[in-house]
């Protein structure tokens, strides 16, 4: 069958039309297939990136084009105490939540890796915090942390832990803790499900062999499971760190950066300055200040991942 098709194609047919020849050329086909992607990414990622840099060295506001001012915007940020607070907050927020998300996520993944009744059901429900729109679920948390009607206060009061009310979002430190709790709540399912997928690729025979050799459960985990899980863990941490570092929604809904600008992150402060007060160039500079740090995180992690893969 195949042979006849080839012979008729080779002998009988006229050369294919131009359009078809174009699609037969691997390079031209590749170019055509990649064109829409390149166009969209170029127009809405590469161009705004360049535009953002240009914007950050001018003094433009909404409706006012502005003049070139050099690094004035960055210099001003350097001496801005709210910006410094935001930088500190972002690092604290990213560091603390990542540790908790990794720890709790790994724990949950190990629990889910056993077989038990209702496992598929449990796994499906556990992902809910991750798939439900973050802004919407954060409102549930805001309501739970409400100073006057907080269910948490009620619970702690009934348990005898407190006598007066706790103003969760009104105190700078407690507000920071509250937004971290929400971020951890949202991130644990992502870590758990991704790490579970990693765990399932590890053959249980390895652990069993170690068990026969007399290794205790903790040692089996530390010397067998953990090293094999490390590549997946690194990628999951990379994604999560970038998302958390650039987080906006949770803080915007929970505190709006307050009380007294104590819980701003890069993104929320950039929004407040760039959109709230209309100082476009200053806002663009705050956003772009994230870039070197994000870039460093990506490079370090990509190098690490490549090293693990080569080994």
């Amino acid at each position, binding site marked *: 069958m195949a042979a006849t098709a080839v012979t008729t194609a080779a002998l009988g047919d006229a050369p294919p039309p131009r359009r078809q020849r174009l699609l037969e050329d691997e390079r031209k086909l590749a170019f055509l297939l990649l064109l829409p992607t390149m166009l*969209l990414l170029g127009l*809405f990622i590469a161009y705004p990136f360049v535009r*953002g840099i240009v*914007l950050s060295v001018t003094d433009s506001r909404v409706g006012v084009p502005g003049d070139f001012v050099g690094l004035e915007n960055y210099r001003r940020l350097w001496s801005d105490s709210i910006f410094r607070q935001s930088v500190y907050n972002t690092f604290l927020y990213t560091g603390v939540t990542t540790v908790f998300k990794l720890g709790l996520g790994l724990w949950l993944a190990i629990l889910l890796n056993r*077989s038990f009744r209702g496992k598929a059901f449990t796994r499906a429900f556990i992902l809910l915090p991750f798939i439900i729109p973050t802004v919407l679920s954060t409102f549930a948390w805001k309501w739970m942390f409400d100073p006057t009607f907080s269910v948490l*206060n009620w619970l702690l009061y009934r348990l005898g832990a407190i006598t007066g009310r706790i103003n969760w979002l009104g105190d700078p430190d407690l507000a920071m803790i509250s937004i971290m709790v929400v971020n951890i709540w949202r991130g644990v399912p992502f870590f758990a*499900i991704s790490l579970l997928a990693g765990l399932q690729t590890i053959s249980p025979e390895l652990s069993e062999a170690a068990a026969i050799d007399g290794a205790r459960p903790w040692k089996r985990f530390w010397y067998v499971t953990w090293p094999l899980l490390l590549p997946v863990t690194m990628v999951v941490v990379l994604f999560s760190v970038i998302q958390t570092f650039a987080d906006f929604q949770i803080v915007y809904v929970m505190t709006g950066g307050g009380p007294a600008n104590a819980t701003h992150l890069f*993104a929320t402060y950039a929004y407040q300055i760039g959109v709230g007060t209309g100082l476009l160039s200053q806002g663009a500079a705050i*956003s772009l200040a*994230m870039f070197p740090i994000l870039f460093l995180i990506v490079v370090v992690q990509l190098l690490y991942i490549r090293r693990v893969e080569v080994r």
Partner: protein
Amino acid sequence: MIEGARWKRWVFFYLPMAFFLLFLLFPFYWMVITAIRPDGELYRPWNSINYNPFWTTQPTWDHVRGLLEETLFATWMWNTMFIAMASTVISLVCGVFAGYALARLNFPFAGGLGTGIFITYLVPQTLLFIPLAEIIRNYSLGDTPWALILTYPTFLIPFCTWLMMGYFKAVPKELEECARIDGASRWQAMLYIIIPVAIPGILSAGIFAFTLSWNEFIYALVFLSSPDQKTVPVGVTSELIRGDVFFWGQLMAGALLGSIPVAIAYSFFVEHYVSGLTGSVKG
């Protein structure tokens, strides 16, 4: 099955599992109970006597009715649905094409382009929203659904491309070669042989992209301004709070109803969603 003594099972499995389930699912229970609780019960201080926050004896539909009748909630749902669908379709088409080219075709700079697309995957929306808002305004796309339909693919395409590359690489080359020997052009071989085999991947990418665009917030917040153009997350945040007053019943009803489309899409395709999620991580 879980082995060991009964107390061990409780300490090492059931109790931690119960803790996780409570922590992860309680906020949703809290949304439901708030959405159906009458105002008189909602706004009682936490330390008043006889206060029981965990259930209500007089469930009410008032908040849901108020949400649908007094606010533009239904419009926001339509807007979000349209925007999420359109940007998902655009991203899938682009992602499938780009993924095929990167996985199957030989051309200069293929490796560099692949890495470039992967890097854009790691660009957070909050990095570019201010210059992008200016660009959107210059193209007079501001305050139209197209502002979002055209920008959402920037964070969906990289992920779709990456996922589809994995799927295409797993399809044996011989399958395509057979079709080519039978006289199919490259284009036909891709369209009729390779893409049908990769349907599960396309489904995973589509579900994941749909939930991501439904959840997107900052672009929608910055690019849209009139109340009747807004998406659900932005509408709920900006329109259901009047002045400084939070209407918690309506807010929670809005949060619940606004989550239903993603929850439905998710519940039908849990396996595809999970493989999309983990596929995006494994790369």
